[in-house]
Every structure is written in C-alpha cells, then in structure tokens.
C-alpha cells in the first residue's frame, strides 16, 4: 500500500513537472476562482466592520430639563442598569461636563467659542448617554424612557432623531452586501465551471494514456491518484499565488484604502485572519480540483 502511494505521488510529481503549459493554464483559472472566494471573504470582513461602525454610532442620549436635579438623573441611571442584558454602558454627562466637552472639541474653531460667549450662559442640558449591547435593544430602552412618569423630567430622547439615518445606512449596507455576494457567487460559479472544463481538457489530452494504463492492468485508483494529486498541487500553488498577490497589493494600498473604509485596515485584517482564510482557500481549491478531476476521469475509466 505504502509503495503504491509513493508511486502515485511520484507519477503526480512527474505529471506536474512535465505538463507545464497545461498546468499553468489550470493554475491561472483556479487562481481566478480562489481570488473571487478571497474577495468574498474580505468583503465580508469590510462590511461587518462598516456595519459595526455604524452600529457603534447608534446610542441613546437622554437630555433632561435644565431644572432637574442631579439625584433624579442618577436615579434614572440606576434604574437603567436593571437592563443589564441589554445595556452595555450608561454615562452621565452634567451640564458643566457637556460645556467642557464642547470647548475641547471646538478649541481650534473660534467661531463656536465666540458664539458661546455671545450667549453668556451654559446652554447645555444634563444627559445620560446609553449604549446598548445590540441595536435591537434600543427599542425596549426607549420604551422605558417614554413612560409617563419620566416625561416631566426628560426634555428629549435623541434616538428617534438618529433612527431614520441609521436605518437607511443599515439598509444600504445590507443591499450592497447582497449585490456583492450574489455577484461573487455568480462569478465564482463561472470560475468553477471554467476550472472544471480546463481540468477536463487536460485529462482529455491524456485519454489514450489512461486507456493504455488500464490495459496493462492498473487499478482505477492507481490511474486516478496522480491526476487528483496533480490537481491538488495546482490548487495549492494557485492559493499561494493569490495570497502573495493580495499581500503585495495590501502592502502598497492598505494605508490609502483605510480612509476610504472608515479606518478598516485590510492588511491587518488579512494577516489576522490568514489561517482561517488559508483553510477556506485550500478546502475550496482542493475540493474543486478533486471533484473536477474525478468527474473528468470517470468517463475514461469504464472498463
């Protein structure tokens, strides 16, 4: 068994070295298929990051009336912590702190500071800034804040003003994601079909030899083995070539693209997820090579 396996690998290696032109064609086509799968993986990462970014921008700010005492606000804060499963954090921002934040934020923009001086008093309201563990939790939190007993002390809740914009953004992101995934799947399917046909063509050129191998008594697996392993070699090289290409591209363009993707660093993401990506790529290329080879060989292995 071991000796046969060794020979199957030897024949595969010989075939790999001797069919360079056909091999290059197969590897090129497989590389396109792997490229599409990798792009899909990266897009998934980018869109998840962007959605998370948008979601993180979502918070509920509860502005209290100017006259409300700090104890009352802190009592609302304590009550909010009862939603421990839904709420990630609650931050109390006093009027003084809000003013301080505003001055810090606009220290280089004198027009804002001049306008503040013009008013002559602190116009900011005390507030509670609430972050939920998931955007879907904002609804029950808002319901709590909308209860009648709190209406006397609450000036406004900002969530409802942001909600439309956030919903719109989420909807656009989801739609773009659907379109890109559908396109990638169609292109991926095309690449799979082209790969299959290219492998079929390379095996077609060997059909006379396959027939001779059968006539000298070689078993089907002894004939199939080298072709399958050769296909896996092609797959592995395609995966390595695609990764090298992405690595070089990211090394040059990742910094520029970071601004475009709201701070998402493609090179970091690629490096951090390299092992899982590599598994996906190898599994994809391997299954594609094995499946295509076996299917193409099936026709010629009928004794």
């Amino acid at each position: 068994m071991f000796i046969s396996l060794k020979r199957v690998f030897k024949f595969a290696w010989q075939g790999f070295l001797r069919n360079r032109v056909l091999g290059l064609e197969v590897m090129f086509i497989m590389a396109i298929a792997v490229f599409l799968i990798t792009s899909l993986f990266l897009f998934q990462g980018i869109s998840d990051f962007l959605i998370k970014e948008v979601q993180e921008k979502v918070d509920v700010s509860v502005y209290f009336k100017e006259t409300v005492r700090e104890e009352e606000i802190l009592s609302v804060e304590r009550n909010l912590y009862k939603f421990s499963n839904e709420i990630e954090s609650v931050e109390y921002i006093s009027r003084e702190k809000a003013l301080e934040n505003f001055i810090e934020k606009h220290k280089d923009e004198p027009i804002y500071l001049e306008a503040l001086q013009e008013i002559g008093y602190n116009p900011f309201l005390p507030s509670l800034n609430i972050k939920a563990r998931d955007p879907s939790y904002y609804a029950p939190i808002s319901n709590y804040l909308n209860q009648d007993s709190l209406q006397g002390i609450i000036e406004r809740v900002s969530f409802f003003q942001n909600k439309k914009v956030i919903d719109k953004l989420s909807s656009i992101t989801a739609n773009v994601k659907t379109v890109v995934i559908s396109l990638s799947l169609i292109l991926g399917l095309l690449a799979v079909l082209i790969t299959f046909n290219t492998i079929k063509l390379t095996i077609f050129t060997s059909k006379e030899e396959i027939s001779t191998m059968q006539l000298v008594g070689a078993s089907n697996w002894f004939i199939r083995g080298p072709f399958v392993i050769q296909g896996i070699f092609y797959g592995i090289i395609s995966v390595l070539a695609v990764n090298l290409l992405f690595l070089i591209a990211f090394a040059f363009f990742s910094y520029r693209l970071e601004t475009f993707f709201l701070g998402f660093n493609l090179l970091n993401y690629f490096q951090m997820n390299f092992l899982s990506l590599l598994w996906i790529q190898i599994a994809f290329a391997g299954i594609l090579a094995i499946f295509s080879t076996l299917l193409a060989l099936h026709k010629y292995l009928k004794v």
Partner: protein
Amino acid sequence: MISFQNVSKIYYSSVNSYPITALKDVSFIVEPKEFVSIVGRSGAGKTTLVKLLIGEERITEGEIFFRNKNIARIKSNELQKIRKKIGVVYQDYRLLFSKTVYENVSYILEVMGFSDQDIARDVSRILGIVRLRERAKNFPEELSGGEQQRLVIARALVHQPEIVIADEPTGNLDPYNTFEIINLFKKINESGTTVILATHDKRIIDGLAKRVITLEAGRLIRDEQGGKFIL
C-alpha cells in the same frame, strides 16, 4: 488456458448503424505453453480477436474463458488481475508518451507492486535484450518506428507474463530485428510462456512451424499444427 466458444463480434457503423461483422462464430482452445499464430489478411479479425481476449472490447455472442473465468462476465478488478498476467504487443503500440522509455517499461512493474530494486534490474535486463538501454531516458516520440516497436515488446515481456499476445509485432522492424524478436518469442515460449502471435508475415509463419489459426472475413477457416501461411 484460453477458450473461445462460438465468439462473434459485430461493430455498428457510427454513421448509419450498419452492422459490420468482425468475427463470426469463432471457436478454438489455446493450451498452456502453446505457441499459436493467428494469420489472415488485413481486416480478417486478428486485432478484434486480441481486443476481445484482453477485454478491451465486449463480445456480441459466445464466451471467452481465461483459466475458466468468463472474460465477458467478470468484474473489472478481476479483469485487471487477468490483464497483469498477459503481456500485449499492440499493433498501434499504445505507448505512454508522457513517460520515458524506462518509465514505459517500469510502469507495469510499478502497478504490480515490484520493489524499486527489482524494477531497476528487470527493466535494465529487458531494455538490454531489445537494445534500448541507451535510450532509457528518451521519450517515445524521440524514437524511430522500429525502436518504438521494440519498446512495446519490452513492456509486454518485462513482467514475465503467463501469456504473450503480439499483434503484428514485427510490422516496423527490419529483417534482422524481426528475426531476433521472433527468436525471443520462441525462447520465452520454450521457458513455459504461452504465445499468441497475430501476423500477416508469411516468412515468420513458415519459419516457425507451429500451430496456425487462419481467419478470413471474421471466420476461422483453418486450425492446424505445424501449419503454413495459406490464404
């Protein structure tokens, strides 16, 4: 050892499905260690007979037995086992063009699981016999027609099969090489190997003085010991 019982083979034209009878009701028995020549004009059915014997083609009617095993009805893995016991010299060579001379000959031994040392020894020996040792690293397309034919013979003999079937094995050889190859077949037959030789070369048949089966238009018309080439 080999028994043909009322074997017929009909091909159907791929153009109009018109039936073409290649063999009609052929029956004969080949005993172990026999040397049998099958003669006939081109198209008489010699190559079809060889193809049926190694299971490359399916018979239309009748039965073929190899050591009491019905070739038409055995499973593919059984057929592969039988093929390993047969050495075939194909009229159209059937060489592995992606492999070197050495690899063409060693392939059957690798299929049979011989050790690397045994393979090196046996391949070198047989390549020496057919005078191709110097060409061991060449690919078949780099060989002349005669060298390719000698390579096919080397491949058929290297694993010392129980039976050798040679379909026009000297068609591309000069008289000197023809004489040597036929002598080689005689020698391996004397050592106990069954030889079936399909040819239309009168000089070979008359010189052998062995059993001759004569085919004409797919029918067996003569089967005689020490026969001559008569058409």
